[in-house]
């Protein structure tokens, strides 16, 4: 579903992503872990066609991210680190705008918006302008926006950052649900515990490289360590 092949991105002399290759299947949650500045966000942005790779290729659902960028943007749902909603628009208006940008049918769109708002317990707030929303509410609207058009691949960049425990729980439950629907999910985070709970496999990135990958059990075996945080620190430390 998602294949990256020797993908690289330079910013001047800095190699933000350096010949990174990975694969993720439908119905799989792939954790992308790494310290701040490891290249997680740059990787998401490359797959989301926001940035153009310096070299290498990647494809989403069989579509090349450079040659078929517009189709790629149709099949992915992207949750940026910051919710990024239009404050002078209500929750519904924000979602309508993005649905229309995905050329969704108006009737389908409004049904889907209602259904998702109810699911996230935001239906009562639907006609309030989002400028007054809490961080958790905004993150929920932002997540609804990412899945509104029923994308095959979800790119979630730190989806629980800044959320309190109940809100983070809602988000994680949703991710599980999306996985059950057969979506391929790239879950980028720097929280090991969260990753262990939700991810089928993980890739650990540091300085633009993959330093380790596999299931949690495989990572434990590779490192000869039980404590995930310890494994993470050791792997990341090796390259820094």
């Amino acid at each position: 579903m998602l294949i990256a092949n020797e993908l690289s991105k330079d910013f001047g002399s800095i190699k933000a992503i350096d010949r990174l290759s990975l694969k993720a299947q439908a119905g799989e949650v792939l954790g992308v872990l790494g310290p701040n500045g490891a290249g997680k966000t740059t990787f998401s942005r490359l797959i989301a066609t926001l940035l153009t790779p310096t070299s290498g290729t990647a494809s989403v659902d069989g579509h090349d991210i450079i040659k078929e960028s517009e189709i790629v943007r149709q099949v992915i749902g992207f949750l940026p680190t910051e919710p990024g909603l239009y404050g002078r628009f209500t929750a519904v208006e924000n979602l309508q705008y993005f649905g229309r940008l995905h050329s969704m049918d108006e009737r389908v769109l409004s049904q889907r918006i209602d259904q998702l708002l109810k699911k996230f317990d935001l239906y009562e707030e639907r006609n309030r302008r989002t400028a007054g929303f809490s961080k958790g509410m905004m993150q929920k609207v932002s997540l609804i926006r990412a899945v509104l058009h029923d994308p095959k691949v979800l790119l979630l960049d730190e989806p629980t950052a800044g959320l309190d425990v109940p809100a983070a729980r809602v988000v994680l439950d949703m991710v599980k649900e999306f996985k059950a629907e057969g979506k391929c999910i790239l879950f980028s985070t720097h929280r090991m515990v969260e990753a262990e709970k939700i991810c089928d496999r993980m890739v650990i990135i540091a300085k633009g490289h993959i330093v380790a990958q596999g299931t949690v059990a495989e990572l434990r075996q590779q490192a000869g360590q039980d404590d995930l945080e310890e494994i993470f620190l050791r792997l990341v430390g090796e390259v820094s």
Partner: protein
Amino acid sequence: MNWHHIKTIWFKELLDTFRDKRTLYTMIIAPIIIVPLMMVGGPLLMSSQEKAAEGKPNPIVVIGAENAPTFMKMIEESGSFQLIDSQNPEDDLKEGLITLAVTVPQDFERIIAAEGTPADIMIMFEARQQASTVSLQKFRNILQSYTASEVAERLSRRGMDTALLNPICVSEKNVANEQEMGGMILAAIIPFMLGIWAVSGGMYTAIDTVAGEKERNTMEGLLVCPPSRWSVAIGKFLAVFVIASITVALSLAGIIAAYQLMLPAIVGEEFQFDMSLSLGNGLMLILIAVLMITMISAIEIAISAFGRSFKEAQNYMTILTFAVMLPGMLLVFMPDLRLTGAALLIPVVNLFAATKDILMGQSEILNIVIALGSSLIYAILAIVFSVRVFKSEKVLFRG
């Protein structure tokens, strides 16, 4: 490019702008209230001061009034002056208690009757006070008629006609009709106004919709949607274009309202000018405005994309404002500047000059075609440039 995408982005940006009070202020309140106030305020103030100075008799002091009874009678009959006493005329003048202090020599009547050396009359006035200068003018007029009647008497005593003194009889006629006078006034103001409101009308929307979108972290969410960068840039450009056009239209309506309705009603008929345009000239001016707004809106989108934040974009816009205002000012202060030679190809300046020529009724079709044609190319280049800036990840994701 996809029309559905462009339309979605365009309408969303318009709605977003209309919901923002700050934009509404620059877009509507400023042009339709401030422009007419500026236009009407100056003449209104001037004429009210003039009227005040002209209306009631001005207090003056005449030292040695008893020496010139005939002349004093003329002053009293004019009804323009109120004669008062003053211990210290110079100080009273400075304080505005009197408007003139006139000194008549002791043997005034005798000197006049002698028909030899002229009699000296000294007038003190205060040039900083309008009432004093108005008074001076009126006093001179009375002196003149006194002189004229004295000269006529002297001539008639010698059996001569006063016509002897007037070898030339002058009559003046202004061949510029009311419409042309109106055109001249519009030619001085409209290019400048067009420039200012084309820049400031859409500026806020341009900043908010690009730099503001970056600052609020909404840009990423927008750009991961299917619309191409072309569609995004064009959608935003169209929103800025519409807002700037509304502002320009409102400001022009403000100018016309000020000159056609408010000035004649408040100040007087002398401010009544015919501001009507022929259909062809009207259409030409609309075309000029469209080209100008297109160019400026596209450049504003590009400038805004360079800004990392709202503030930074605002700073860059200041430079654009000056770049457009300076040639506009030039036209106001150099009324004889005509559209010729290299001026035909300078962006913005050529449109200003063309506007002026059309309003003055002095336009030459070839010059106008060159100015409009080159501006059309600049406008297209400006749009292409703004889209290119939008496609640059260095610009869009810097900071």
